[in-house]
């Protein structure tokens, strides 16, 4: 497997979120035209990326429910912010956490395809679970009415 193929293996994945997060997604991601009283991201994947990194920062890792109770937003990672190399940065972050995910960089080079698929799957789960943690954090604030109605809300929470 070449570097390119490996990367593609990851980038064709569509991370999922728990259906219970739909309300918070609806409020915080604009998804075209929907407006809310809070500052919003554009497409869902922006919120998802933010939630993933927020989860990492807040150290909130939360497993997703069974697949039937989850959804994806129809966009492969490779198509998130395609015009920038943001996914490369995300992957950089992910690959520094390889111990937590459960693989070794050099081992990857000796794995067969099935093994690599398993690692990729773990990587996606890692993303999903931290994103879920981040979304949960946002969800709690939303439910408690503690989200601040400011255009700087996301960056303020991110510090």
């Amino acid at each position, binding site marked *: *497997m*070449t*570097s*390119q193929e*490996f*990367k593609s293996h990851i980038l064709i994945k569509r991370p999922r979120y728990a259906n219970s997060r739909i309300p918070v997604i609806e409020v915080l991601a604009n998804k075209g035209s929907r407006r809310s009283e809070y*500052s*919003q*991201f*554009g497409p869902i994947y*922006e919120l998802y*990326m*933010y939630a993933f*990194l927020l989860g990492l*920062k807040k150290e909130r890792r939360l497993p997703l429910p069974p697949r039937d109770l989850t959804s994806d937003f129809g966009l492969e990672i490779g198509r998130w*912010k395609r015009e*920038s*190399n*943001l996914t*490369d*940065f995300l*992957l*950089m*972050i992910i*690959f*520094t956490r*390889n111990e937590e995910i459960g693989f070794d*960089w*050099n081992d*990857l*080079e*000796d*794995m*067969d395809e099935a093994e*690599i698929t398993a690692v990729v799957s773990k990587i996606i789960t890692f993303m999903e679970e931290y994103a879920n943690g981040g979304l949960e954090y946002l969800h709690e604030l939303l439910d408690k009415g503690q989200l601040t109605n400011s*255009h*700087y809300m*996301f*960056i303020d929470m*991110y*510090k």
Partner: protein
Amino acid sequence: MASIINSISFKNFFNYYGDYYDTRYEFEEGVNIVVADNGAGKSKFFNAFLWLFYDQVLDSDDKIKKGIKDIAVKIISDKAKSETAIGDNVETGIQIEYSTGRFKYQITKSFTATRLSKKITNFDSWQITVNDVEVNRTDHVLPKYTPVYDADEKANIIKQLILPTLRQYSFFQGEEVDSIIDFGKKSSIEEAVRTLTDISKYEELVFLTKEFKDKAEKDLNKQTKANSDHNERLDKAIQVKQDLENALSNQEIKLAEYEKLYDDAEQEKNELEQNFSNAEKRNDLDNKIKEKNKRTNEVAEEYTNFLETINNRFFDGNFSWISLGFDNVVEDFQSKIQQFREFHFEKKTLKNINDPNKHFHFLPIDSPDTVSLKNMIDHEHCYICNRPALIGSEEHNHIIKLKNRPIEAKNDIDFVKNNFNNFFGDLQINAQPFYNKISSIEDSILKTREKEIALNERLTKLKKELKSLKDQRKDILIAGNDSEDSMTIINRYKGAIRRIADSSFQIEKLQDSIKKLKSSILNTEREIQALRPSNIPEGYLLNYEISTDLALATENAKNRVFDNMVNLLEKYANEHFQSLIKYNDLAGGILKFEKSPSGSILFNYIDSTGNIVHGSSEGFQRMKKFSVVMAVISANTTKYNYPLLADAPLSAFGSAFTEGFFEAVGEVFPQSIILVNDLYENDDEMKLNELGKKIIRKDFIKRVYINQIDKNKEQIDRTTDKIKLK
């Protein structure tokens, strides 16, 4: 001789309860004032004259003038109604005494109402019979009135108090004064001049003398033909004169057409004048508002857009907010990739051990990576051996060579299943925009906030400016007419101005041509005289000469009178205007009367520098109108012989005009009876305010009455009581 109202009395007329002798108001030549608070009988008083002149009264409920019989039940004093038993009757009426010359008249108009049922305010409860008008006359020397029986004579006596054609200038209520003269229509001033002066008589004379002249000429020509032996030259001269006269008449028709065009344009101009000056300002403001609105919207959009895209800064490589707080990632990754590569290349080395040349590298293959090499090139320093590598030096060239080295990977023997070296290397290179900026993100956030504040301030300032412009625009709206759009008004106004200029030019041309034609006609006439045979009876010639002179003299006299009239009007209007505004601190302008090219009267209000003044308060406008009315009256060669009867003429004047008003009317009208509430003060012992007290001390104020009504009483018991103050 002037008509002077000596008294007016009422019988059970509205709140004027009681018999004629109870409610008698006496007046004299000069200014008479009846002061009454609202609801204390001013309009009822005025209604008495409406009844006298028109057999109508104004229904205060719907402000419509109604025939006496239709509104009779409302007219009868409620107190009188309630005191009338069913089956009994009550009389309601007005009685006016006035004198003119050696006669004094007493006019009584009344009706009798018989009560039929209980409900006194019901129209069905009363049977109304209008009584015959009673008119009595007395010679001042005779002590007793004698009745006038002839209906026409009675009507004439009533008419003479104030002639119907003059009533609009002499008998009005409140804002009716506004409709006396419409400054927008020049015909309005002309009508006033025609009605109030004898200029129309001159016009009649001009018409008559012209007819005489034409007749005399025809007669003369007939005689000439009869007496001459077909004098060809004379015939030709008469023919030429005829042609010239036809041409003249054509030109005069054309002139009249252009004069009409001129007048219409002038009228439109006057009507638009107010709107135009506002329209210009409005248009100017509209443009400013449009521009400001555009700017405000742009900034508002920029601001909204700015706020809405703040979150984009997380993902935009120029801001990279998303990487905030991930400083350690770069280091971790660096150390992991190093570790990875060491092991990676170790494996490779082991695989390639059969090729010693490849084994003995100082550095692992493809190391340093291109990014590090580029750094070294840029910084002119080799980080491998920590030595400077200045541009142009051998070391520097070596680094460049390394960076451009061919990719040899394909020659490598597979030493791992999956070679991910590039995967990690690419991540590190590609993600640079995000991790390179981490240290400056805090600063970027701060700058974002600053930019937002600056945008917000800009927007607030623009909004304030826009509001101020809109407020100004609103102020203009009050005075102007917004139904038409400003551009239309401006274009119409400019159109009217152009038509005035065009028709003025044509009028001058035609007048010139008419003058020439007239002069040609005169010369032809002389030629005709010379060609006329000498045997014409002298009477015809003489008749013709005299009537020609007469026609010319009358025409000149009319023009002179008209010119004088315009001058007089201007003089008097300004005098009256000055006295009307003399207690006002407003700088009064000048009322300017001019003869238009079409021969009509133009009126303008100009300031001391000669600029036309537009728009001013309603009171001021009314003052101007009043000045013109009084000027027309004053300019009349014969004295104005009728009293002024005005109900609340001051309502829009403002107190500063009031004093001037009383003085001015005193000078113009032989007698005035003014009904006002402007001088009333309920809390004062005399029921007069300070201005009232000041005014009643003036000599020209002859009689002052105060009307009193006890407002605590039920309507059914209310009566108007009068206090005679002077």
